[in-house]
């Protein structure tokens, strides 16, 4: 009786086993790694807003400070979206006929809030407080990127738990002097106090910042 399998069968079988192993391994990797990709995290995606607000124009072009609109950022957990009243502080006088601002005027006249869409969000099981970060030396740019370059606003950082922990494990290097908190493109210069000096200035480091209950409450 002739051999049931030709020598080629060995090659086919080995190749098949390897292919299945590869498929399973890469499938598992994809399964676990996918949620951490910038694509799945929607990093860099612009989000459609009721009025196409440009941070680039208002921040880089006009030099308006973050707090002019996000005024509760130093005192509250929420940076807060500006009410229409804030837009109308200027737009009651300039660009009063602009078609692009029709939604703002409508909101003001009808006394109905704008439905700005949140761009940067953390899951509901994360307790995040803007006030403590801003008053302890973390600049807006550290999490929001350089918004002065954003014609349409997008999420600039992944905001994974890894991202938060990178800083909570070593906060010193991310702190900046109080006068630079709201700078959108800040870099250390030789006269900048070192990480240790900033940690001492802001009294950061007395508590373990990687405790679970710091963020999960």
């Amino acid at each position, binding site marked *: 009786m002739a051999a049931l399998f030709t020598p080629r069968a060995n090659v086919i079988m080995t190749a098949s086993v390897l292919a299945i192993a590869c498929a399973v391994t890469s499938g598992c990797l994809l399964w676990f790694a996918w949620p951490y990709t910038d694509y799945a995290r929607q990093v860099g995606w612009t989000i459609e807003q009721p009025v196409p607000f440009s941070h680039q124009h208002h921040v880089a072009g*006009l030099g*308006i400070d973050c*707090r002019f609109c996000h005024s509760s950022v130093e005192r509250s957990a929420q940076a807060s979206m500006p009410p229409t009243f804030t837009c109308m502080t200027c737009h009651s*006088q300039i660009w009063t006929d602009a078609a692009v601002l029709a939604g703002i005027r409508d909101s003001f006249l009808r006394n109905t809030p704008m439905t700005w869409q949140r761009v940067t969000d953390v899951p*509901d099981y994360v307790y995040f407080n803007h006030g403590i970060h801003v008053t302890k030396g973390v600049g807006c740019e550290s999490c929001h990127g350089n918004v002065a370059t954003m014609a349409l606003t997008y999420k600039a950082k992944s905001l994974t738990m890894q991202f938060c922990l990178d800083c909570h494990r070593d906060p010193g290097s991310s702190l900046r002097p109080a006068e630079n908190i709201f700078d959108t493109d800040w870099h250390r210069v030789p006269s900048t106090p070192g990480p240790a000096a900033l940690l001492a200035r802001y009294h950061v480091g007395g508590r373990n910042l990687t405790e679970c209950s710091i963020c999960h409450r």
Partner: protein
Amino acid sequence: MNAVRSVCIMAISLPLLAGGCDDMSKQDRENPYASRNSAPADIAQGTVPYHDAPHPVPPLTAGLLQRGRSEYHAFCAPCHAETGNGDGMVVQRGFPAPLPLVTPDGHALPSRHVYDVITVGQGIMYGFAQRIAPEDRWAIVAYLHALARSQHATRADMTPEQQASAQ
């Protein structure tokens, strides 16, 4: 027998455990931006609107002046300019120019008046009561006095170190 028992325990406990598998990132809690329940409550008897509550003048410290400088640059400088002259960037883009904050003889406007204008606005200027906390309004007022003085400063006002560095 033991095997049947473990299978039963598994059959009951696994669905119970699976009941915990929901998307924790979306939890049922109030969204302060979009909840009818978080609308402001009716004003309680015997209270006054928050910007009418008395806010005494805080003591003048270097920290207050620094705070005032920061707040002034954030909220006032777009129109009033960093100098207080009223030719800020938004004015250069077409907003009607405000009057100078510093009088020609180098004095700031009356403190109480400036505080009240920041609170409720004046003319086409909107009030900033919601955006600038009362103590920060006083800080801005204090900074305006420093700003006024700086514009008529002489060499004699400088410390010896400043004079040396200005050589």
